[in-house]
């Protein structure tokens, strides 16, 4: 919250001194955040969640894997804030540590799939030959529902967070490639790009100096949606036993373990479920705010 205010305050203090320090895109982001308090709420929740994940060991948690059979299935109380599970493990500690998995997977998949998608999209957008082949492959990959593709990839390898990230990235990336490619295809027809070509600018320079800056903002928006969707996919994979290994607590596998106990210990499912939903909601609110900032015309519609 404080950081958002700082970013907002700096250019206002010295608008004439640094007129080029802030691109129109960023200015629009700032304005949109002012108009959309929900986007700020989303950012605040997300920052809080990241803080919880980082500082998990110091938030009154105990070892989330510590088994104590004598204290099985205790309902929430002063000693066990969110109760204990069927092995007597502290659910509060497990849920707090579970934030690490969701956020790591969400942010890593968002970063990896935007980077990969950007690279492949730039290349295919500019090379006709490559384009035909790559886009057919992407069409094929997009016809496989992403959760199914991730399930298939996870079935090939052993359960680990790294493999979960790779599997979800491969399932999410084709959509990013499509977005980047369509942007490149329309940008390359722009007059200023033609001018750059006429002036003898080399292709890599055109891509980096003239095309890339116009892709960054929509890519950022897409990245937040990928992040939210990746967190849901991770939870689904863990929930059906094809994701995060059982020795690492994640919101998905805490819920999976509580599945058969829904009638006697619903807190095993309710608390991780709420955390997951709130975090994904925060990411989506942030994404909606940024999208509205980018396309004010769309803002009214969506």
């Amino acid at each position, binding site marked *: 919250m404080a950081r958002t205010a700082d970013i907002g305050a700096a250019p206002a203090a010295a608008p004439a001194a640094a007129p080029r320090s802030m691109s129109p895109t960023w200015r629009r982001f700032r304005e949109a955040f002012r108009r959309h308090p929900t986007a700020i709420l989303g950012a605040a929740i997300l920052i809080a969640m990241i803080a919880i994940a980082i500082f998990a060991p110091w938030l009154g948690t105990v070892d989330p894997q510590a088994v104590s059979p004598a204290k099985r299935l205790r309902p929430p109380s002063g000693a066990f804030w969110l109760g204990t599970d069927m092995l007597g493990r502290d659910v509060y500690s497990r849920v707090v540590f579970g934030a690490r998995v969701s956020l790591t997977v969400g942010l890593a998949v968002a970063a990896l799939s935007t980077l990969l998608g950007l690279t492949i999209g730039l290349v295919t957008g500019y090379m006709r030959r490559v384009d035909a082949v790559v886009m057919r492959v992407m069409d094929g990959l997009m016809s496989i529902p992403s959760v199914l593709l991730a399930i298939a990839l996870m079935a090939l390898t052993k359960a680990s967070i790294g493999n979960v990230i790779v599997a979800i990235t491969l399932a999410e990336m084709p959509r990013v490639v499509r977005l980047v490619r369509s942007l490149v295809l329309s940008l390359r027809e722009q007059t200023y790009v033609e001018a750059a070509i006429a002036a003898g600018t080399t292709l890599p320079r055109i891509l980096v100096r003239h095309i890339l800056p116009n892709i960054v903002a929509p890519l950022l928006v897409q990245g937040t949606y990928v992040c939210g969707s990746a967190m849901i996919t991770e939870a689904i994979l863990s929930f059906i036993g094809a994701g995060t290994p059982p020795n690492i607590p994640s919101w998905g596998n805490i*819920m999976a373990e509580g599945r058969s106990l829904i009638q006697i210990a619903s807190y095993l499912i309710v608390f991780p479920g709420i955390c997951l939903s709130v975090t994904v909601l925060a990411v989506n609110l942030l994404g909606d705010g940024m999208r509205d900032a980018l396309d004010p015309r769309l803002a009214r519609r969506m």
Partner: protein
Amino acid sequence: MIAYIVRRLFSTVVVMAVVAFVVFSLLYLTPGDPAAIIAGDIATDQDIQRIHMRLGLDDPFLVRFGRWVGSLAHGDLGTSIFTNLPVAQLIGQRVEPTLSLTLCTLVVSILVAVPLGVVAAAKAGTWLDRAVMSFSVFGFSMPVFVFAYILILTFAVQLDWLPVQGYTNFRDGVWEWLRHLILPSIALGTVYVALITRMTRASMLDVLAQDYIRTAEAKGLAPQQVLIGHALKNAAIPVMTIIGVGIALLISGAIVTETVFALPGIGRLTVDAILRRDYPIIQGVILIFSAVYVLVNLLVDLSYVLFDPRIRY
């Protein structure tokens, strides 16, 4: 028109070929020697060698791919490692619950989402519009299984109105069948409703800004007539598109929903196959679901003619 259908069919074939190639590559990359699995524990190296020869496991990748596609064309999806039954038969046994669940969800979602979107667009900017839009953001953010458990805890455990889990065949009574599908369909449909509502509203807002809508209003048509007869019909194409694309959400969601509600469908089969590492089943399911997705979207593309007579492919 015919030329367009042929072109569209051709691109569908290309996409399905890519899907088949990806699925086969997954099969090819699976760890472990299928011959050793088939031969069993007491097999000698020679036995395994013989099975290798018989199944042609030592042939080049593309030869094996060609043979696999050939057997697919004969409806052979391979054999389950765990049960030793044909995958096509196993999937066939599980079709009913999955089809019931997805079709129920599809119909109910469209019936709920399209009117919601129309009303939100007609009352754009009011509290009603904002409520519908907030609901759609929540729908996107709430994972299927979280919402499913909230529904179970409320309507099955607390209120005891509906069954917690399970499935009844359609033949064994329509009412019981429907009772078991209500909660799963609501859980599965929420994301889908959110998606369709958003698109309907956006598309309607675009159309409502057109001149011919003003003309229709000016000549004294009732507001409902303008909304349904003029606006909705012209706003239908993007809505149809998103309904087709959203099938992917239904398929992915069905796997989770069947797990939560213990419905003995294809999703449940898939999850069991993952736990047993029964790869042929996983691959068969991916192939079938992807084919359904591709075909539905082909039909959606072709259906545009119904909504816009100007489209002459």
